[in-house]
């Protein structure tokens, strides 16, 4: 029991200056990935602000630098250490899946990384492995840098995209707020007008109120329309500025089998109306497929709302139509038997 209490206390106490968290609640502990000995911030400032100095723990004596100190994330120092090692290894072995032809090769690569991390963090020949890693880094510096560049470019793109999205949202909010204010003003004005009219006009009061309501309704629907237009305009803008980046990726469908899907289709689709308005209009295009059931389905609101689209449906049918047309069962099965 006492041990537990002691440990609890020692966890909250700097082993160098013996300051307690209980007495100075905003003290922070830092560690250095050289030796992972824990000490408080003020100790670090005191000991290392004049330059590199040995670790004050008895029997350690490793030379530490102030800029390498960092906050501890995990309670368990073993984990903390492993994560640091992993970071280091991954910064050297930074190939991605797309750099491999086969998934199995990529898996092997990942396995190799895991073994390395484990070896360095807990193996006997950690030192050798570290030297090897450094050597590898030296030899492949150019490739590693290249891959790093690629990665950062990608994350850059992502960041930019998110930035633009955020800006778009802000703008939309601004406009909406402005509109709300206008609306408020409008209702106030209308009220006043109504009072004036009631006072002076010869018309029936019910009629007057009806008139006003109609006006308000009209305005509301107009508002809605304007808002919608604005939104679609903004989204368009965003899309055009980012579409170029998106279209670059090849659109090969995923296959659970080894190898890529053959994208050469056995058929050519006729033009199929894509947007909903023309579909709803239902005038069958003479250049497209003509089938009464199909056009009927294409107009079904429930289907459309659920995401059903004519061209995907047709595409699916066509894919299934030619699936296995070239398989001559007679021939292929008799071969597989012999």
């Amino acid at each position, binding site marked *: 029991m006492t041990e537990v209490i002691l440990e609890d206390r020692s966890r909250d106490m700097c082993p160098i200056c013996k300051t307690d968290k209980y007495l100075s609640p905003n003290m922070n502990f830092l560690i250095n990935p050289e030796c992972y000995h824990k000490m408080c911030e003020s100790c670090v400032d005191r000991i290392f602000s004049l330059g590199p100095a040995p670790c004050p723990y008895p029997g350690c004596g490793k030379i530490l630098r102030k800029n390498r100190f960092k906050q501890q994330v995990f309670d368990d120092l073993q984990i903390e250490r492993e994560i640091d090692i992993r970071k280091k290894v991954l910064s050297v072995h930074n*190939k991605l899946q*797309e*750099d*491999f*032809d086969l998934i199995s090769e990529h898996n092997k690569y990942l396995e190799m990384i895991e073994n390395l991390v484990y070896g360095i963090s807990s193996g006997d020949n950690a030192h050798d492995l570290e030297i090897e890693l450094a050597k590898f880094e030296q030899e492949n510096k150019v*490739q590693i840098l*290249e*891959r790093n560049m690629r990665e950062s470019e990608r994350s850059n793109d992502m960041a930019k995209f998110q930035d633009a999205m955020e800006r778009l949202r802000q703008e939309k909010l601004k406009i909406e707020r402005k509109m709300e204010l206008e609306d408020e003003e409008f209702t106030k004005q209308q009220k006043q007008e109504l009072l004036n009219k009631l006072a002076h006009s010869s018309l029936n009061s019910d009629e007057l109120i009806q008139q006003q309501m109609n006006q308000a309704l009209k305005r509301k629907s107009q508002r809605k329309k304007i808002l919608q237009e604005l939104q679609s305009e903004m989204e368009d803008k965003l899309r055009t500025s980012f579409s170029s980046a998106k279209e670059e990726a090849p659109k090969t469908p995923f*296959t659970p*089998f*080894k*190898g*890529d*899907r*053959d994208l*050469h289709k*056995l*058929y*050519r*689709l*006729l033009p199929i109306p894509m947007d909903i308005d023309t579909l709803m209009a239902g005038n069958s295009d003479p*250049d497209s*497929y*003509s*089938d009464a059931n199909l056009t009927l389905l294409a107009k079904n609101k429930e289907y459309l709302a659920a995401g059903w689209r004519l061209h995907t449906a*047709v595409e699916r*049918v*066509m*894919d*299934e*139509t*030619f*699936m*296995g*047309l*070239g*398989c*001559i*069962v*007679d021939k*292929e*099965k*008799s071969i597989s*038997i012999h």
Partner: protein
Amino acid sequence: MSLGGSETAKKPYVSIDDLYRKSTQFQMWSFTKSALEETKKKANENGTKVAKQRLLNEYNNLKESNRTLFEQYPQELNIDTIFDPLTFEEEQKYLHFYCEKIITTADFFNMATQVKATAMSFFKKFYLVNSVMEYHPKNILYTCLFLAAKLEYYFISIESYCKILPKTEPKDILDLEFIVLLSLKFTLLVYHPFRPLYGFFLDFQAVLLHPSPLMYDVNVDKLGHLYNQAKEWLNKYAIISYVGFMFTPPQIALAAMYDIDKRITNKYLQRKYLREQLDAIKEEQDEKKGQDEQKHQDEQKHQDEQKDEEVTDDNQSLESQQRTQYETIVRTIVKCIRIAKAETQTSLQESKDIDRKCFFTLNPAKMMNKKIKKLSSGTE
């Protein structure tokens, strides 16, 4: 870049036909004609063996209790004369009779064609593994239909299902359900020719009517008519026969159209195989000349930097290749039609006779008792 060497190594490449080759329908349930016959025969043989064992048990029991009678009539009570299994032909006829029954039952429930076809496929697959001498087809039929209805989104609760069927308890069906699934090896997805047929209806339009009509008397209405007739053809011939085990769904769909209107279908196939693909390949080659980097996997096309003359040479060999491809397809289709139409109907009387025989092989005790009763009454 020499990073992963991804540009040098080619990935293997999966065509739409290869996708079909990976399906269980192709891998487990497609046979050549002779292999299919053999499988059926084997099922019959196994069934005979099981039935004989069943009879033998019964026979020995009764022999213990009716020793005198057995000694009195060694001729009539000989095991070999008593044992009368269904022959292979009888079994096939019997199954055919029940296949027709699936259609009437499904129609009775107003089920979609898809359900019908799936149930039919399950039923046939079940009797490729088992024999009617092991499981009586009546309840297997109901079980297959119930299972197919569930799988094709036409769910009926077991209570309401059994209420309509004569003399059937939920237990009869539910007990068999797992046995059926086991025999199907849990492969439940069945590709039917109906969707390809619809696809061909659309593609016929694309090929024959656009950009301008190819044949003076073919228009959308005519194709629609052809489509409807072909659908009927599939319902009449394809579902009930075993073509689903020997041909792929698009081939069967084309067979239906070919049998209804040979002229139009042939024109379509010619256009498709002898002209269109050639065009597509030519286009690809042009593209290829433009950019050397592009990787194409077709064997015929890895002579990149060859001269134009050689390319045309290549085209000629391609043309012959296309022609053989076209001819194989037509041959397959014609064969499919022949097999689909070869199926003969089983008359009611015939099936009743077989049914009696089947009943006795399934319940040897009843038959034996009947026989013994008859003989013992004759002696008195």
